[in-house]
């Protein structure tokens, strides 16, 4: 039952952070500066590297898909497949994992250190406020980083797909746009948006929440990180599975 209670507390923390995001104190100058700093530091260093890496990986996959589809005489389906596989499925997933490893895990470690020093507690009103104010910027940074990385890489991949299939000419733009329009069916788009949102929320919330609410372990910090990662990956897997069910069943 302990893990169930931990999950419940994480979900409650998420609700508190969202409530804070929708309330006026979140936009007070001092707190806003803190959130902006977290967001910038969580996203900017990753953005370039992740975009480059995902572009390279995307280029390889696009090439494989296009060549294979052409060899079977199914080139008209190549673009659809590229957009579905890369933009809708792989890139959000990769972005979530990337942010989890590079941003959320260090934040989790910092939160655990704060907790160990006894700074964060929920026994008093001021303690809860302090906790939310300390945690919320980190959660916001994780959420924003996942969304930003997925959005930039998705757009870059769409451009690369066009260039790979049609080359540096504008003649295929109408057909390309039509195909992209086909793929982004309203239900598919809704599932994509919800999936990205929940992935980003999981990446922002679970590591920090685990650091706050997990029972103190005697084992090392690395074992805690592995536990957080396993929990996060399980949630990511669940979200991915639900999105696939939503899209293709």
């Amino acid at each position, binding site marked *: 039952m302990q893990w169930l209670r931990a999950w419940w507390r994480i979900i409650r923390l998420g609700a508190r952070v969202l409530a804070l995001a929708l309330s006026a104190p979140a936009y007070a100058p*001092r707190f806003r*500066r*803190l959130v*902006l*700093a*977290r*967001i*910038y*530091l969580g*996203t*900017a260093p990753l953005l370039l590297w992740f975009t480059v890496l995902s572009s390279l990986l995307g280029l390889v996959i696009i090439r494989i898909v296009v060549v294979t589809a052409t060899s079977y005489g199914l080139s008209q389906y190549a673009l659809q497949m590229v957009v579905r596989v890369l933009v809708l499925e792989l890139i959000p997933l990769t972005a979530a994992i990337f942010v989890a490893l590079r941003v959320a895990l260090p934040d989790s470690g*910092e939160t655990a250190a*704060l907790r160990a020093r006894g*700074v964060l507690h929920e026994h008093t009103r001021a303690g809860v406020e302090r906790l939310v*104010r*300390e945690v919320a*910027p980190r959660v916001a940074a994780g959420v*924003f980083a996942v*969304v*930003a990385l997925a*959005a*930039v890489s*998705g*757009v870059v991949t769409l451009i690369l797909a066009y260039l790979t299939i049609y080359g540096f000419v504008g003649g295929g733009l109408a*057909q390309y*746009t*039509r195909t*992209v*329009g*086909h793929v*982004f*069916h*309203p239900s598919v*788009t809704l599932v994509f948006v919800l999936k990205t949102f929940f992935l980003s929320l999981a990446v922002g919330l679970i590591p920090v929440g685990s650091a706050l609410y997990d029972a103190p372990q005697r084992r090392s910090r690395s074992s805690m990180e592995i536990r957080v990662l396993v929990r996060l990956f399980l949630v990511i897997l669940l979200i991915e599975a639900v999105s696939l069910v939503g899209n293709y069943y």
Partner: protein
Amino acid sequence: MPHPEQSTPPVAHLELKATLLLILMGLLLAGTVLYVLYARGVFEPTQRLTLIAENSEGVVVGMDMTFAGFPIGRVRAIELGEAGNARILIDVPRKDARWLRESSVYTLVRGLLGNTNLRAYTGIPEDPPLKDGAEKPVLIGDAAAEIPRLTSAVSELLQRLGALTAPDSALGLTLANVRDVSEKLKGPGGALSVLMGNEADARKLILTIERGNALLARVDGAVARLDGMIGRTDRMIERADAQVLGDAGLMRDVRATVTELNATLAAARTLLAGVQEVVGEAKGAATNARVATADLGVLRADVEANLRKLQHLLDEISRRWPFARDTELKLP
């Protein structure tokens, strides 16, 4: 107790950079949303076309309707009509609707791989344009439905082919005959023995050909002689030509004679004119003579009248005169 602000490392113009990042992300997301909406055709004015089909198998919402290979419409919904048929609702952008006419034909073709294509054809571009909300029937062509028929046809074809190529079939016998013929062709008589049926006739044919050759040789000699005759005839014609048309030829004499004849004719013409005058005068004399003859008749009548008067007078004198004889006859 560490202050929250102290937990972030210092970065120059952090707030500005973070704001810029947020604005860029906002723009990127807004641009992506607008692009997807544009790609979905949200900003494009459309008109509705309803296609009525027996069934909507293979048709999915979002699939294209093509015209000459270009997508000009998108399936928005599929519904079951009151009559139990499928109603395929298609949104056609107004700028593409000009390709569709009232007489346009729509087909729903299902391929062998399960791919379904909705196509429009316009045969008469001058027809009135398609109205908004038009309902049209769609023709269905199913390639998969042809497979059983095709399989049975192929099976029948293979059976016939097997029967055709059997050893005792007509084709087999024909091929055996062809083999016999080819062996004969390779024999001493060759093709002639094939044509004639036996070697004796083939020999006769060869003899005939040889005689024909000899005949041709003789004809060649005759032709050579004929050539000589033609040569001589040519020379004769040349000589005749020189005699007739040459400087001292017959033609020149004929020309001179004709000239003299012309002069003679002119003289004769003059003479004839004189003769015509004489004839004219003779005609006048004859006329006068005819008049004179008429007068003579009158004169003779006068003379005869006068003579009759004189006779009558004499007769009167004689009767009255004493010496007149009794001329009266007295009957006894």
